[in-house]
């Protein structure tokens, strides 16, 4: 297979031109061949007739010549003077009269014969050579009174006549003769356009000799050399090759009389060139060539024009397709007004252009606009920010305000996605209302994240706008007659104050927003310190991972005591980080971070593992204490947590009932359903469950009732102040009563002195934790602490007993 393409394969136009020229030449060639064939057939049909007609002409010519001879002879024979001379026997006079009359009609031979055909006088010097002629004629003349015949004389065919000389009866005969000469052939040629060749031979075996011809000598000789037979041939035309040329010949025997003279015979050959008859006439050939050349030019021009008509629009369509490929959807197609296939193609292209443009617009919309709210999306917002920075006037600022809805997931879960979507739309509308100026942009960046772009302003204006936005969230959204309360964390950043470019500006606004979320006290303007903190957390992450491996983590226990007896009834396991450089890192410095990043899973498992290990140690040391372990929100959302715990306990050979799992109220608020499912499974496994930091959240009692908890820990903020604040004391008491009514044990945290201890005892609180009794301590110290506490407790009990 050849990779090379030929020139006509590369161009439709070339093919059209080639095809039409090829067809033209084929047709021309075919008509030329047909013309040739037709001419040839026509010639072969017509030529025999022409030859036949020529034969008649020849006969006619011969007759006319005979007639001339006869007339001449008759004139002579009737001449009175001649007859007188004949009667007078005056030979000299007779010869002169014969010569005179012979010359009048061109007879070469004239003779006077006696009535018995004896030769009496002749113009010929050798009168005896006339005898064959006389012999040929005499019988006929004797019979019919006159004679006319052809005869050979000395190998030359002669035409001779014999007429009687009457005075008034026949007294003699006049013989007149002339040879068949070139004139005969010339006359025949001029009358019939045929060539005449006369051949004769004196005897049968002799070769034919040419007597006269209108052909050239060579052709005549060649013609004479053909095997002409004496037999009468009736063929209308005999084809003979003469010097490489085809000749049509009609062959006529010239009657020379009786055959007794040794087979002397003569033939008249009428001939014409078949080739010449078949050959196209020169002017016709020229006309054909001229027509072909003109037609080639016309066809070439016509087909080039046609090809252009086809290929030009094709090329422009190809260009248009290129333009479409290049993204230009605005230029309309050309050639749509045509009614042919090209026009259809153009219209198809035009429709394609429209639909591609529409698709493109749709893609653009999807790419740059949020379909739900109709607001610009993150990509478009980013573009807007970049453009705003590029266009802002010197000294002015560009502000980005970023919002994240609080607990939007909760709305979705509680009220359904439909309401969630309506909420997002309503938020977008409310935000848009807060932004009054042209050029400012409100966008939805992702799920529940919105942003506002202010094209000019400063930090103060930005903050005021942010606060106005926050205020606008104070009023609940009413969605399908259902009021929904939702807040937002708002971060603000300004260019060029906080960032060098658009991406950085967005990033800073987001950082500020997260800071606002964490702090929970209103819109947050970006501050480099936030970034520093987050930079620190990043380092912390790395270090925390390292801490697990390097055994820098420690498990501390804080005793939990029965208020009534003062006995040690359990301990809360707390995580401590012994940093090699920073020393002991407080949990508040890394636990929230671990929760954010999900590292909390690792930490929780580590704590349970350590607790289980220490449980054995304590149990062996005579302290069979149930240990409390804190679970985070993320732990509760981990579906696999129960299995992991089960596996761990099985490995450590500790019963689940040896542990109490503490959960904060807020931990259950993000996804209550999943959290509750996990809690149910943990409870079913035998873990005791406890609500930690009770009172800081918004748990409803009904919800509390549904939880499988057996213990409730009052937040230390209430306990710590109950001594001085009557409200807090009231809350503590109410909580204790409430819990007891639900059959739940109450633990008070943050007991820092004996008065509180006693107050709690009076309020029937079940257990207590606090610095008053014992700070969190390494496990190894618990036994020592226990002994010391027991003895101190005894002394106190003694004191109080003494006191009472």
């Amino acid at each position, binding site marked *: 297979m050849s990779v090379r393409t030929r020139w006509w394969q590369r161009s439709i136009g070339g093919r059209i031109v080639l095809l039409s020229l090829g067809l033209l030449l084929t047709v021309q060639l075919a008509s030329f061949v047909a013309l040739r064939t037709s001419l040839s057939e026509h010639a072969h049909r017509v030529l025999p007739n022409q030859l036949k007609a020529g034969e008649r002409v020849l006969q006619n010519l011969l007759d006319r010549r005979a007639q001339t001879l006869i007339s001449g002879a008759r004139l002579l024979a*009737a001449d*009175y003077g001649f*007859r*007188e001379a*004949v*009667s*007078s026997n005056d030979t000299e006079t007779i010869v002169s009269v014969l010569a005179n009359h012979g010359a009048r009609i061109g007879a070469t031979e004239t003779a006077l014969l006696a*009535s018995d055909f004896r030769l009496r006088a002749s113009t010929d010097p050798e009168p005896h050579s006339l005898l064959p002629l006389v012999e040929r004629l005499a019988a006929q003349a004797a019979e019919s009174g006159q004679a006319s015949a052809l005869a050979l004389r000395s190998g030359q065919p002669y035409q001779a006549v014999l007429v009687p000389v*009457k*005075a*008034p*009866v026949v*007294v003699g005969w006049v013989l007149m003769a002339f040879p068949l000469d070139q004139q005969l052939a010339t006359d025949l040629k001029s009358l019939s356009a045929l060539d005449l060749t006369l051949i004769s031979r004196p005897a049968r075996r002799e070769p034919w000799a040419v007597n006269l011809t209108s052909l050239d000598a060579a052709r005549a000789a060649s013609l004479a050399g053909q095997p002409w037979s004496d037999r009468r041939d009736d063929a209308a035309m005999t084809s003979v090759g003469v010097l490489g040329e085809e000749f049509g010949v009609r062959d006529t025997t010239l009657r020379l009389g009786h055959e007794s003279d040794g087979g002397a015979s003569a033939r008249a050959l009428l001939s014409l060139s078949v080739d010449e008859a078949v050959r196209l006439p020169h002017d016709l050939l020229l006309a054909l060539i001229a027509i072909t050349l003109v037609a080639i030019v016309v066809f070439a021009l016509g087909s080039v024009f046609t090809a252009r008509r086809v290929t030009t629009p094709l090329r422009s369509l190809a260009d248009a397709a290129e333009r479409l490929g290049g993204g230009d959807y605005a230029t309309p197609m050309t050639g749509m007004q045509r009614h042919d296939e090209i026009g259809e193609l153009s219209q198809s292209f035009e429709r394609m252009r429209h639909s591609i443009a529409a698709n493109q617009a749709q893609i653009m919309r999807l790419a740059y606009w949020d379909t739900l709210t109709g607001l610009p999306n993150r990509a478009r917002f980013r573009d807007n920010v970049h453009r705003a920075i590029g266009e802002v006037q010197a000294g002015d600022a560009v502000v980005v305000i970023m919002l994240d809805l609080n607990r939007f997931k909760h709305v979705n879960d509680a009220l359904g996605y439909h309401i969630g979507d309506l909420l997002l739309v309503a938020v977008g509308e409310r935000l848009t209302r807060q932004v009054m100026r042209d050029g400012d942009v409100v966008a939805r960046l992702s799920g529940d994240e919105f942003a506002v772009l202010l094209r000019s302003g400063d930090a103060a204006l930005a903050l005021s706008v942010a606060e106005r936005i926050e205020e606008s969230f104070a009023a609940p959204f009413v969605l399908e007659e259902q009021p929904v309360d939702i807040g937002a964390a708002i971060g603000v950043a300004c260019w060029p104050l906080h960032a060098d470019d658009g991406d950085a500006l967005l990033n800073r606004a987001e950082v500020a927003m997260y800071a606002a979320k964490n702090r929970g006290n209103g819109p947050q303007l970006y501050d480099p310190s936030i970034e520093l903190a987050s930079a620190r957390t990043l380092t912390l992450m790395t270090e925390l991972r390292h801490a697990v491996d390097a055994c820098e983590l420690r498990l501390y226990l804080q005793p939990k005591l029965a208020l009534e007896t003062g006995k040690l009834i359990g301990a809360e396991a707390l995580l401590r980080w012994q940093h090699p450089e920073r020393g002991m890192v407080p949990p508040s410095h890394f636990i929230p971070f671990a929760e954010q990043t999900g590292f909390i899973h690792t930490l929780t498992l580590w704590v349970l593992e350590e607790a289980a290990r220490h449980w054995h140690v304590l149990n062996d040391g005579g302290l069979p204490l149930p240990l409390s372990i804190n679970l985070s929100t993320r732990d509760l959302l981990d579906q696999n947590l129960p299995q992991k715990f089960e596996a761990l306990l099985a490995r450590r050979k500790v019963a689940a009932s040896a542990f109490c799992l503490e959960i904060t109220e807020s931990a259950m608020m993000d996804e209550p359903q999943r959290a509750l499912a996990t809690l149910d499974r943990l409870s079913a496994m035998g873990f005791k469950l406890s609500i930690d930091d009770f009172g800081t959240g918004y748990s409803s009692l009904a919800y509390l009732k549904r939880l499988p908890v057996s213990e409730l820990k009052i937040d230390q903020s209430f306990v710590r102040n109950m001594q001085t604040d009557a409200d807090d004391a009231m809350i503590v008491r109410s909580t204790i009563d409430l819990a007891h009514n639900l059959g739940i044990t109450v633990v008070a945290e943050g007991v820092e002195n004996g008065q509180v201890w006693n107050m709690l005892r009076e309020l029937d609180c079940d257990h207590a934790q606090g610095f008053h009794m014992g700070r969190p301590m390494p496990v190894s110290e618990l036994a020592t602490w226990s002994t010391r506490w027991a003895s101190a407790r005894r002394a106190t009990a003694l004191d109080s007993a003494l006191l009472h």
Partner: protein
Amino acid sequence: MLRRLCWFVLVAGLALGGASAPAATVSVQVADRAGKPLADAVVMLVPVSGHLPVKPMTGVEIAQSHRQFSPRVTVVTVGTSIAFPNLDTVRHHVYSFSPVKSFELKLYAGVPATPIVFDKAGIATLGCNIHDAMVAWVVVVDTPLVARSAAGGKAQIDAVPAGDYELRVWHSELTEPSAAMSTPLVVAGVDVQTRASLATVGSRK
């Protein structure tokens, strides 16, 4: 030559039965070769030796009427003058190239002033130079013994003295009409009946 041979055989056969007498009648039955009797044949007897006296005839005319000679055959004795009255309205040019009498009467109408005298025995063929179809013969005889055959072909010559004769028979339709056929005939006072068979133009066909 063949014709002459026939002639001899026939005459010889007839002569054998002849008887001698001072004057006799010679009858000749003239026919052509086909046996068809020929009328208007001229039969004459010419003595082999000696001469029978003849007188020129008078008042002989050969008229030209209706572009024909009339009569076509005229038998005259030597020395007879013949007049050629032209009865037609057209002129004629009467001629003869015959050696017996060669003459020419150039275009004339009416009767030429001088008649033509035929002074030699023989046969003159007359023609008209204007009208080729006109032909006439003048048989000039130098003997009184002459007769013409009747319609039945029979010619009879009476009072023929005994002697040696040459029997001459001429007819205008002879193939060679310039001369008569002749054969010897001996007459010895007995009537002779003989036949003459002529080679004529008609019988050859």
